[in-house]
């Protein structure tokens, strides 16, 4: 049975490697990722947001909603940790 799992893992890995071979080359200027919105961000960030840091401009300005969600996710993580792990003082006395 173990050998079966090894073979299954190898086949899945080979399939994934085969899939990677179809992707555009690293840093290819004609790949879809660098043709759609990236040039616009690079050309217009300073003009539109008056901020020299492109990464932060995309993170906090163009995609402000997304970052708001991220912050809420972190907040939720802390609240759930608090609810599960923290002991209340009443329970401590018992």
């Amino acid at each position: 049975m173990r050998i079966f799992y090894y073979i299954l893992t190898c086949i899945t890995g080979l399939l994934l490697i085969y899939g990677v071979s179809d992707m555009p080359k690293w840093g290819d200027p004609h790949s879809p990722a660098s043709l759609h919105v990236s040039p616009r961000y690079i050309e217009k960030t300073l003009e539109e947001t008056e901020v020299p840091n492109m990464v932060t401009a995309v993170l906090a300005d163009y995609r402000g909603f997304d970052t708001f969600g991220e912050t809420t996710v972190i907040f939720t993580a802390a609240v759930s940790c608090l609810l599960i792990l923290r002991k209340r003082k009443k329970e401590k006395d018992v």
Partner: protein
Amino acid sequence: MIDKHESIIIKTISRILAPFVQLYALYVIMHGHTSPGGGFQGGVILGASFILLAIAFGIDEVKERFAERILTTFTSMGVFIYGFIGFVCFVLGANFLDYGILPVVEPRGMGMLGIEIGVGITVMAVMVSIFYDLSTYE
């Protein structure tokens, strides 16, 4: 439960190091919109400084100075600052989180700085809060 560390070297080094780590964290947050860095990174560094103190001096002593109650307030305050800045833009007549309308110099940069301060506060408080919860769980 993390107790006070016995080694005097560790205690002295972490005591000297902590303010510099915190200063660097504030720099990373404040310069988030002009240089690499930002709220998430700076918040993590700021939280790590408190965790360093907790490891060196024991968690009880750090809890005395930075209580869980205050941490919980900070956790929600950061998200509130973020949402509040977005809402102010909304009230002034622009879209939610459209900083261009804020009545300050360089409104977009200042808006980003504001929300990054909010993110930094939340990330710092969350890091320390989760550390407290995990290390005191029995």
